[in-house]
């Protein structure tokens, strides 16, 4: 028995450029989510709840906030005498150093780290998806199938198949073909970017791939197609619950709206599968006599004096008297001034909106658009920010 049966490798180096101002100062996995969390809390909590106690977190783009957030991993109960969380930025080796070229290259550059624990299996995760998943069930599936690799997949609507990596499978769920964003998909099973590999087998493929100068060092583009060509036993593990890739501003906003509603698909209140986060340690939130709160999620440390409808409000936010906010995502410590009116917007960290502003109310747009105010911006009193505008 190896000391660590399955080691988690969490890819957290991405910039997430389609999130625009949300990732101006921080890596995508550090983006706040759901009033209490950051995106990385979901995979890290899943690891903790699935009994995976050794996790490498691969960082690259703007890692400072992420590094200090992860700390020693104690927030996810991952501060272990051996193992626990290790943050893995690129580093200089004998032959020099290089940035992580792609997802597979990032793992390749940390072969020595994985070898320290000599696991039987390696679980590769992305740091930017919203879902609750028991990875130990996926491992059971992987073992039952006697697979070399297993890829978690989710059914997507047929019209969306051209946005995903699609897995074509036989009746036994064995993957015989991989199509990256196909126009005419044969299947609607999309890769969730969650892989389990037999470590010794993956290790060989990583080394072979690294030797190819023209390779992108990417799982989807290089390693998986290579494995399929070699006729390895690769199986699709179908995941049936809520999963959301918050790749764009609109999908980020929609994922928040998904949390509202009377029976949200993602239950964050489940005490048997807690989503852990670094506790910001704030006092209880206050709903004033003048406030009106409907259909909303409100986190600690916020003070509500105005009207809040269908919103997600993070810690430390303050909503002034007579302010009206509808369908908004309010990130930590944002201040909304008296009498301001905001609709369909994302208000980022430490933003100050002075009194009587109108945001996302005026202007015309053919399609639905989310208005965004970036970190630390100050919107002067009486300002008018039109629908779909991004400030910052």
């Amino acid at each position, binding site marked *: 028995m190896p000391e660590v049966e399955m080691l988690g490798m969490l890819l957290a180096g991405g910039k997430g450029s389609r999130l625009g101002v949300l990732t101006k100062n921080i890596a995508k996995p550090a983006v706040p989510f*759901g*009033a*209490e969390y950051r995106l990385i809390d979901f995979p890290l909590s899943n690891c903790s709840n699935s009994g995976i106690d050794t996790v490498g977190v691969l960082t690259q783009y703007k890692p400072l906030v992420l590094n200090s957030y992860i700390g020693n991993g*104690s927030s996810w109960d991952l501060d272990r005498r051996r193992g626990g969380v290790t943050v893995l930025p690129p580093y200089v080796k004998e032959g020099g150093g290089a940035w992580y070229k792609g997802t597979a290259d990032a793992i390749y550059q940390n072969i020595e780290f994985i070898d320290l624990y000599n696991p039987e299996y390696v679980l590769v995760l992305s740091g930017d998806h919203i879902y609750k998943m028991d990875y130990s069930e996926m491992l059971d599936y992987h073992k039952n199938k006697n697979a070399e690799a297993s890829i978690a997949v989710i059914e997507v609507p047929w019209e969306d198949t051209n946005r995903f990596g699609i897995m074509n499978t036989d009746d036994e769920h064995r993957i015989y073909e991989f199509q990256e964003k196909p126009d005419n998909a044969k299947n609607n099973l999309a890769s969730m970017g969650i892989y389990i590999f037999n470590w010794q087998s993956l290790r060989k493929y990583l080394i072979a791939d690294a030797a190819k100068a023209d390779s992108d060092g990417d799982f989807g583009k290089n390693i998986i197609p290579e494995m399929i060509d070699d006729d390895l036993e690769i199986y699709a593990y179908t995941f049936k619950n809520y999963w959301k890739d918050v790749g764009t501003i609109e999908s980020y906003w929609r994922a928040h709206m998904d949390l509202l509603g*009377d029976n949200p698909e993602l239950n*964050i*209140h489940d005490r048997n599968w*807690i*989503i*852990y*986060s670094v*506790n910001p*340690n*704030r*006092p*209880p*939130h*206050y*709903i*004033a*006599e003048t*406030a009106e*709160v*409907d*259909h*909303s*999620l*409100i*986190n*600690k440390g916020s*003070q509500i004096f105005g009207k809040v409808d269908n919103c*997600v*409000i993070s810690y430390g936010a303050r909503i002034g008297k007579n302010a009206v906010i509808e369908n908004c995502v309010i990130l930590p410590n944002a201040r909304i001034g008296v009498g301001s009116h905001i609709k369909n917007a994302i208000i980022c960290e430490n933003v100050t909106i002075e009194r009587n502003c109108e945001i996302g109310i005026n202007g015309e747009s053919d399609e639905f658009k989310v208005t965004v105010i970036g970190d630390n911006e100050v919107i002067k009193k009486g300002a008018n920010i039109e629908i779909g505008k991004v400030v910052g």
Partner: protein
Amino acid sequence: MTPEDKKGGRQMSNVMGIINNALDETFLEKLTNHRSLASVPFGARYRLIDFPLSNMVNSGIKNVGLLLESKYRSLMDHIGPGKAWDLDRKRNGMFILPPAHIYQANRAYKGDLQNFASNIDYIKRSSQEYVIITSPNIVCNIDYRSAFQFHLENENDITIIYKELPVFRRDTTYTVLNTDDQDRVIDMRVNPAKNYYKKISLQRYIMKKELLLKIIDDCVSMGQWDFLKNGIIGNIDKLKVYGYPFKSYASVINSITGYYKSNLELLKPEVWQDLFLKHGSIFTKPKDEAPTEYKESSFARNILAANGCIIEGEVRNSILFRGVKVHPGAHIKNSIIMQKSEIGPNVYLENVILDKGVIITGDKELRGDTNYPLIIEKNSIV
């Protein structure tokens, strides 16, 4: 950088803290049937201990001892290794001081000086020269630095932090004191029948550790066992005892009504801000609850709520602790609902304190009085 081992100095690292939880807690009746005073829940997400403990940590104290007497299971669970207060340290940190005297042949409990005496090794061994002794039943957010500087500059033997009340409240008990124009304490009484003074002790005492050791020894050797009455009040004429006024919000929990009203007082935004935002955070054990959810049918006005609640009914002027569920059609008014309690559909609650884990089944109506709330015991099903 201040070297922690360096003896002496006017830094707060030269002060150790002792929280005296060996106090009578029977005045809280059902709320302290199964827990000690320090672990009584307060203010939607805290326990009373969080206030004195966070105040010490925020003031720069790095060594805190916690005197225990009885029913401290929930307190130990709450404190753990002191991590939430950053007191899980290799040097100094959090010290749990259990009642060693309960193993002695003569087991009748004499008083809190017994708890000091049976943990005297800890006090002696601590490297700090000064000590602040506090009680858990006073809720405030105080920075001890200026009081400590006053103690040093005025060369006091004992400094007692006090608050001058605007009006005297008759529904609770106080330790009152009188001072001269220079703030020297000239009289001090515990819950006197006639309420003499508007200055009430916040039960925070600053002194040299050597003096504390001497007080313990003097009292114990004379068969005196009450730290406050014998150790402090008994020395007012002999030592240089001064008061230090505290001007921000403070509330003394010495009765059920006092407990109830102090909780509801947090609904005033100025009190909320004074207590929680002014002098650093109040730390507590994190529970990783999701944010609180207000559903379509909810109606909330003037409430304080912790995380993890799901609110579908109407809540007014109330305090909701973590993980409370309020079903549709329920009405809650002027009440304190503790952790994980569940209020069934169409229930009416007014002036009620529900302890942890209480379930009120549908259509029930429970009312207390504004001046005497109805208390429902932990884990009851009504």
